[in-house]
């Protein structure tokens, strides 16, 4: 164990790694703070340029972006009541009233200190739980992996959307996109229509850039938001003291636990973590009547929980190779581009990478605390960039990124086609996260399914006789039943409301 930690820490002893950490956190804060941009967009834009970096520098950069983005959403939520990320909307409930009351500095300092606390707590949980979970999962074969893939995909499809059918369709489209190109077991060409650009399949980088960057560009251009975001509030620099912050220990502890647990659940994500933690903090607070009017506990609960989801979300990613959110799906793809396959074997074959990730998470949270406290005025200036200009620049960077990976125009065209697909799906309220996870897990699910069927002479019974596989498939079915019941209830409530 100690040897692995030393290996991990040793990986970070280069100046390039430290630079990547600072740059990644800064980039994450900026993309998280800009309304319309998000952590996944920032990650997708950076992946192509990590090719020239060593695997550890690339991983540190991407994880640091992920950490920074979860915090960044709170900056505009607190100062201009425009959350940069969905979870920032919960922070705005109490953060903006604090700004109106002339307590911007206090709200922002609570936000960054809470985010750091949540992030560090969830990293400790990641270290404690991922090692035994990886040891348990090491015996998984194709049967269990197929069931695990279906479980991960189903739970995301049913939880992430307000309409379970659209979530399932999005997941199936993601799996289908993954089938394009040479079939993994025999090399048969599928859906390539004679196009050499598709022989190797749809480039992961092009797909991510299309879904997260190009789709966003279309939406920004169409929305005609021209006005720059500027804070009207009088900016105060008075920060909360560490002693005052320690007084929030109860909210911090509960929100950290809630955020971490929700982070582990596929599809739940930072926004659900923030909502649940906020409600719980309000319930237990003796000052619950102050919530919504500028309660520091409200900002603390939301921000602690959303950053605590980061460590939680990395548990299934690192131990099982199953992502539960858009950001972790992109991280999985990026790791695979660097020939690192997350899963139980990673803990055996590449302990330096695993412990390097653990150490990065600890350090990135402290870097975030430093940058968040010291450069707050800079972040507020950066987010004033006009959205249409931002959209055009995102397109241009995505274009160069898609081309730079394979030096092929075909990859750029694929990016544009997937961008149009993502735009149409977003317009029709199909969630993109199940599609991304389907795309990332497609190969694992197909190979596991076919290997399992070959071993069982074509019998599907094998998935129901193995206890782990059966348990996962039952959980997948239950998540769908839950989503169906939820949708029926929501429809009935809507009908009742309309009839009134």
């Amino acid at each position, binding site marked *: 164990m100690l040897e692995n930690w030393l290996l991990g820490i040793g990986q970070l002893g280069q100046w390039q790694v430290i630079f990547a950490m600072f740059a990644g956190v800064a980039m994450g804060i900026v993309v998280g703070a800009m309304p319309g941009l998000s952590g996944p967009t920032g990650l997708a834009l950076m992946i192509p340029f990590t090719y*020239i970096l060593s695997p550890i520098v690339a991983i540190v950069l991407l994880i640091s972006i992920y950490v920074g983005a979860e915090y960044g959403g709170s900056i505009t939520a607190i100062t201009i009541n425009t959350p940069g990320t969905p979870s920032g909307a919960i922070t705005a409930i109490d953060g903006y009233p604090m700004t109106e009351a002339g307590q911007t500095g206090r709200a922002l300092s609570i936000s960054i200190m809470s985010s750091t606390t949540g992030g560090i707590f969830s990293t400790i949980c990641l270290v404690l739980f991922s090692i035994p979970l990886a040891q348990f999962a090491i015996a998984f074969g194709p049967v269990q992996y197929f069931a695990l893939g279906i479980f991960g995909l189903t739970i995301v499809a049913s939880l992430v959307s307000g309409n379970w059918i659209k979530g399932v369709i999005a997941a199936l489209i993601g799996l*289908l996109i993954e089938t394009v190109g040479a079939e993994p077991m025999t090399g*048969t060409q599928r859906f390539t229509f004679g196009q050499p650009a598709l022989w190797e399949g749809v480039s992961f980088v092009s797909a991510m850039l299309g879904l997260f960057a190009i789709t966003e560009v279309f939406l920004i*251009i169409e929305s005609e938001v021209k006005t720059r975001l500027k804070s009207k509030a009088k900016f105060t620099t008075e920060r909360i003291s560490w002693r005052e912050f320690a007084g929030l220990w109860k909210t911090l502890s509960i929100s950290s636990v809630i955020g971490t647990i929700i982070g582990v659940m596929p599809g739940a994500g930072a926004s659900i973590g923030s909502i649940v933690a906020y409600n719980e903090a309000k319930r237990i607070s003796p000052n619950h009547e102050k919530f919504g009017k500028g309660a520091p506990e409200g900002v603390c609960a939301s921000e602690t929980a959303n950053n605590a989801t980061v460590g939680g979300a990395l548990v299934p990613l690192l131990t099982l190779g199953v992502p539960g959110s858009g950001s972790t799906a992109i991280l999985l793809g990026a790791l695979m581009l660097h020939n690192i396959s997350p899963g139980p074997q990673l803990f055996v074959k590449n302990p330096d990478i695993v412990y390097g990730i653990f150490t990065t998470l600890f350090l990135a949270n402290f870097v975030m605390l430093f940058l968040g406290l010291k450069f707050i005025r800079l972040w507020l200036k950066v987010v004033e960039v006009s959205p*249409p200009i931002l*959209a055009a*620049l995102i397109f241009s960077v995505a274009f160069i990124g898609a081309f730079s990976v394979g030096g092929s*125009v075909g990859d750029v065209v694929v990016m544009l086609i997937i*961008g149009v697909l993502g735009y149409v799906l977003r317009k029709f309220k199909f969630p993109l996260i199940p599609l991304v996870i389907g795309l990332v897990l497609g190969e694992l699910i197909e190979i596991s399914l076919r290997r399992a069927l070959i071993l069982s002479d074509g019998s599907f019974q094998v998935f129901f006789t193995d206890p782990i596989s059966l348990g996962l498939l039952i959980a997948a079915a239950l998540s769908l039943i839950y989503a169906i019941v939820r949708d029926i209830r929501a429809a009935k409530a809507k009908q009742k409301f309309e009839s009134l």
Partner: protein
Amino acid sequence: MIKKNKTLSLKDMGGGELSVALLLILLSILGWWETTRFEVDPGMVKTMGPAMFPQILFAGIIISSLFLIFQIFIKKTKRSEVVWGRWQKAPLAAVIMLFQALTFEELSTFVSAGISLPLLLWIAGVRLKFIIIVTLIFMIFVYFFFIVALRVPLPLQFLPTLLG
């Protein structure tokens, strides 16, 4: 508003979602037909060949789309959930993006981006002064960051000759 007991038209019945569901069914049928043409290795059971997995997915999409149609009729959705902004801008932007993709190897990165970036900014509603400033700054950034620092092999055509 739609009066009670009135027959609902396709447009009223969540027309957008219905069109998408029907389109997905049509594409899945075409996709299924395409899978029947996949080559199967000699000795491999056809049902476990390369067509098996896509066929399961197409069947899943057809069933889910039928559920979506069923849901639209059961819920009697009164209007499409889709909210279009100035939607004409999106296809126009897509055409400009495609223009850049198809021309930048011939015209070089700087010429094609020099045409498409200002057009994109113009469609997005940016003022001329900012269009010129942003385009120039971006070109300089591309040259020094992507070409000089990161050594991304972008097509340059005449630029190296021009710079000696």
